[in-house]
Structure formats: structure tokens, C-alpha cells
């Protein structure tokens, strides 16, 4: 143990286990939370996905969607939407975050950070309406552009489409990226750059050899967060398109709420598909995070 090597008094095994017990006790509320809201629902979902909703018999039938091209369209749409929103959100968000960090004005930094916190949480039906009023068929911006000779709808743009949804999702994805990238950008020490310059590195060499390797991990893990965020979002998309753009979360809701397509077993199977994608994203983020915190903590 490293503590004994650096000279800290060694705890007796009994005291250590007592402390361990107390620590475990302190973790209990968290464990209950995770158990009740993550583990139990996941198990219930997985269980339900292998059982027929009507008869309760064990079945693989709920996963038949994997073999139907039409039933995979929601997955394709969701993937396109999430990738698009993630790309737009992370690139623009990173540039803004860097601009905030580089800004010498304390006021600009504070205003930008506060705005980002607010905007990152502005989602759902109100956001959908805000965009309808701005970029809908007869939205303010659409009409303004049309009056000036630019007809965005004539050019094939539609707010009620995957492309439209990407723009809407970017509204909260960009500030979210700003918020999560500010700490690592601020943690970049001026002394690293000075050290590199003293050793004769050019600006480009500093970026390539020092800044990018350190920032790559927080950046990629932030992208994964954005991606998972976009993949699971429901209310905004539904408020905007009332189901016309088929997405996985909307499809799940149809199967559990709809009067017509009611089939909770199949909804469970779709949710498991969604959960697998989410787990890969979040797991990937956790792996990368472990690498980057090693650097940034110093």
C-alpha cells in the first residue's frame, strides 16, 4: 500500500475493516439509488424483452425488428440524428469554450458560462415551439429570409426532419459541450507551453505533441456524453414532429402508450437495443476518463 511507504501510520486491520464498513454504509444510499433506478429497471426490461406480452411465454419474437428494414428505420434515424448533433455540438462547443478560456474579460467569461448552463437545460416542448416560431414554415427567420430572396424550404430544408432535429438538438448540445470542456481547457497550464517553447517547440509542435494528446480524451469522452444525450432525448423530437420522424425513443413510447400498437414486450426489446448503444457510449467514456484525469489532476 502506498500509504505505508510514505510514512502515514499504518491502521490496524480491525480499524481498517471498521472504516471500510463505515465507508460501505455511506455508499448505501447511492447503491439503493443505482439499484432502484438503474439495475432493477434494466433487469425488468431484459426480462420483458424475452417474454411475449400477451401470453407471457419465453420468446425471441420481440427482437424480430432486427430483421425488418422498416423497423430499423428508427435506429438509422436516431443514429444519424445523434451523430449529426454530436458533431455539430462538439466542434462548435469546443471552439466557444476555447474562446471563453482565452478571453481576458472576466465579465465575458461569466456571462458565457451562465448562458451555457441555462441553454444546456432548455429542451423539450418549449424548445420545439421556440424553433417552430423561428425556423418553421412560417417562422420568423424563414419569412425574413424568404422576403430577402432566400427560400430555405424551397431549397429542401424542413425543420420537421432529421436535419431540422440536428439543428434543434445542437441548441443544447453546444452549451453542454462548452460546460464540460471548460474545466479541462482551464486546467491546461501556461507553464507547459512555456516549457515547450523554451525547448524550441513551435506553436504547431506544442499543439500536436502536448495540447492535443492531453485534451483528446476529455474531448472524446464529452462527445460520447453528447451522443448519449441526443440518442435518448424524446420530448423535443416528439413536440416538433409528432412522430413523423421515427426515432427509437418515440417508437418505444408508441408501443407502450399507443392504443393501436400496444406491445410492451417489443418496447422492452427496443429499449434493450437502446440500452446497449448507451452502455457502449458511457462505458467508452468511463475508460477514456480514467486516462485523461491522470494528466489533468497534476
Amino acid at each position, binding site marked *: 500500500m502506498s500509504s505505508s511507504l510514505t510514512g502515514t501510520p499504518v491502521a490496524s486491520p480491525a480499524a481498517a475493516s471498521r472504516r471500510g464498513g463505515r465507508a460501505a454504509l455511506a455508499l448505501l444510499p447511492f447503491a439503493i439509488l443505482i439499484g432502484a433506478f438503474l439495475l432493477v429497471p434494466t433487469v425488468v426490461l431484459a426480462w420483458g424483452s424475452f417474454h411475449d406480452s400477451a401470453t407471457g411465454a419465453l420468446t425471441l419474437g420481440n427482437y424480430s425488428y432486427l430483421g425488418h428494414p422498416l423497423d430499423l428505420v428508427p435506429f438509422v434515424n436516431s443514429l444519424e440524428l445523434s451523430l449529426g448533433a454530436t458533431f455539430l455540438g462538439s466542434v462548435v462547443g469546443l471552439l466557444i469554450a476555447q474562446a471563453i478560456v482565452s478571453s481576458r474579460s472576466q465579465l465575458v467569461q461569466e456571462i458565457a458560462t451562465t448562458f451555457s448552463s441555462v441553454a444546456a437545460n432548455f429542451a423539450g416542448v418549449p424548445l420545439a415551439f421556440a424553433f417552430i416560431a423561428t425556423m*418553421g414554415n412560417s417562422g420568423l427567420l424563414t419569412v425574413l429570409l424568404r422576403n430577402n430572396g432566400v427560400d430555405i424550404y424551397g431549397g429542401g430544408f424542413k425543420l420537421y426532419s432529421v436535419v431540422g432535429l440536428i439543428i434543434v438538438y445542437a441548441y443544447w448540445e453546444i452549451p453542454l459541450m462548452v460546460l464540460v470542456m471548460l474545466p479541462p481547457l482551464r486546467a491546461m497550464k501556461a507553464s507547459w507551453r512555456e516549457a515547450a517553447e523554451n525547448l524550441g517547440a513551435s506553436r504547431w509542435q506544442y499543439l500536436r505533441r502536448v495540447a492535443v494528446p492531453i485534451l483528446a480524451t476529455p474531448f472524446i469522452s464529452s462527445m460520447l456524453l453528447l451522443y448519449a444525450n441526443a440518442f435518448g432525448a424524446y420530448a423535443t423530437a416528439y413536440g416538433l414532429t409528432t412522430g413523423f420522424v421515427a426515432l427509437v425513443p418515440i417508437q418505444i413510447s408508441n408501443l407502450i402508450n399507443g392504443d393501436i400498437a400496444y406491445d410492451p414486450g417489443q418496447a422492452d426489446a427496443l429499449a434493450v437495443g437502446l440500452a446497449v448503444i448507451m452502455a457502449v457510449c458511457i462505458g467508452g467514456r468511463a475508460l477514456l476518463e480514467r486516462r485523461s484525469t491522470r494528466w489533468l489532476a497534476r
Partner: protein
Amino acid sequence: MANDPILARIDELSGAFTTGQIDRRRFLKGLVGLGLTLPAINVIVAACSSAATPSQGVAGASADPALAALISAAKAEGDLYQTGIPPEWVNYQGIFDLWKQLYNIPIDGTSTEGEYSSGQELDSIKNTGKPDVGDVGISFAVQAKTQGLSAPYKNSFWADIPDTAKDADGYWCCNYWGAQSFVVNTDAVKIPINDWKDLLDPSLKNAVGIDGDPTKANDSFFAVWSAAVGNGGGVDNIQPGIDFMNQLQQAGNLTAARASDTNIISGEVKVAIKWDYLGLAVRDKAAGAPNISVTIPSSGSLASPYADIVAAKAPHPNAAKLWQELIYSDAAQLLFLKGYAHPIRFDVLNSAGKIPADLAAKLPSADLYKKVTLVTDVGKITAAQTTLGNGWKIVINS
């Protein structure tokens, strides 16, 4: 036979009445108390009246003796408990006011259960036993009968009501309906929209909307189904409606923006396919900004009715029956029409010239409504929903 004691009691009452042992009022009260319907009572009374001395000053100032008896029986119960009848819906407030003005009997349940959905209404009837009357969607009316939650009662206007709009045994009766209509923003749409094919016009890019996801919302479900009527299908076949919507989608005319009040008024949806009563209400709400016109497709559309039920265990059975008498009366039916719901006796009132000209002027023409088909067959509704569930995926995913 279960009816034997009732028949015996009718004989007894008739005998007592014709021989002058009881007066007319007590005779009628006795008949009402047996749970007879008004037409039946009228027949009995007419048969006995020739022999009896006419009584004076029947309460309720009604010319109809049986109705007068029902009124006094309802007044004696002193209350009407309703479920799922919201005052702001189809002008029910006007009918509540009329009820209070005519009979001065309190109406309970409005604040607690007034906003109940049809399913909640049936739950309340089953579990609390409080409600006397409810206003439910047609499939729930049928369900109430099969579950034994409603009681049979045939109102005095029974003959006016189309056979498809009433239960043969009297367990439910449709009181009003809405038909799918075109709600057109005439400031933005310069071509006349009279029939389904007009919606395919190239000038209507991203302009045509329905009210929600048809696999979830009744309004848009009926919009798709009604499109079948104008395109070679109908009540028995929704598929041409789905195909037509797909055609609209391929033409780029169908918008995903929901045909909500906000989106219609803002011009986001320029032609909405939705219930006529909702369209007429949004027209009034917009008040010329923009100008909105509501029309019924000339090749026809579908209508979905609401039905009234009397609870099987109504604590105030006579008040419940009196409520039925009221809502089918000319006065209340016109109040529904004022609330833009299409009253079930519309044709009767119309051919008798009882619809005020100023009210008629606010509505699509009565002739267009002749092409509207009332959908009351629950089996066909389920079949259409199943077809739509599979077909709609193609419309949105292709």
C-alpha cells in the same frame, strides 16, 4: 318472468287511477318509479286518460304529463351526479344553465370528474357508484353495456335517432358528433379547397397537417380514415386513406407540424384536417387573423359520435333520465350546435326549419354534411386501427 310484478303493478296503478283512487300526478310518479321509458308511460297514460278526470296544474309546466312526472321525481331526488361532462366542452355549460333554469336541480361531479376521460368515467361508475350519467366515446359506450355498467333508457326522441347511433336495447345513445373537415387558412391558401384531391396541389408544399400521430390520437386517426372515403375506400377500408396520406407525403405537401390551434393560427399549418367543431372554434379564436374557413370534403368524410349512458346503479335514476330527455330536446340540441358539435337530431331540426339563420351561417352547409358517415361499429374501428398500425410506418419511414 321478471316483468310480471311490474305488469301487475301497472295494472294496479291504472286501476287506481281510472277509478279515481289516486290523482294523475301520483299515477305518473308510480309509473316512473317502475323504471318505464317515457314512450311507454305515454302509451299507458293515453290509454287510461280517457277514463280519468284531467288533473290541473302539473308541476314543471310541461304539456307532456309523463315528462312532468319525471321532473317531479327527479326534483324529489334533488341531485344529478355527472362524470366526464366538462362545462367548456361542446357548450355543456349552456346545457347546465338550461337544466338549472328549467328544473333547479343541482349538478354534482363537475369539478371533480368533469374532465374525466371515457375510461376514467367507466372506472368511476364501477368503483365509486356515484355517477348518474356520463358522456363517453362510442367504443366505451359499447364496453359499458357489455360490462353491465349502463342501464337501458330510451328517450322520447328515440325515433329521430338513426339506428346506427343508438343501442337497440337502449343502453346507450349518441347525442352529438364531429366530422372531419378541412380547416383552411384562406389568407395563405389561394386555391379553393373543396375535396381531397385539392390537397395534392403543388402550391401546398409543407402546408397540410393532421392533429397528431394517427396511431395515437383519435382526431388524426379519423383524418386518415376519412381520406379513404374520398379515395375509393370507406368505413370498411382505411387503406386508400393511408395511401392518400403517403401520396401527400411524397408530394411534400404533408407537414409534420401538428395541426394544433397555435400552429393553425401562426400559419405553420395552412390546411388542417381535423374535427369540424375544433376547426370552427379555432376560426372564431383567430377572429380574422388569419381568416380561416371550415368545410366538409365534398366527396365525404367520417364522423365520430359521443354517446350518453345512464349508470346502471345511478343513485338518482330519475334525474339521470330527465338529463337524457333534456339533452335530446330541441333546445339542448341547438346548444350543442352553438358549441359546434353536430347534434344527433340535426337533420330533423334542419328540415323543420328550427336552426336559426345566424347559427346556420356560421357552419359548413347542411348539404355537405349529408355525405358524412357516422362510425359507430367498434369492430370496424379496431380493424381500421390495426391496418393503420402497419401502414403508417410506410408513410413516415419511406
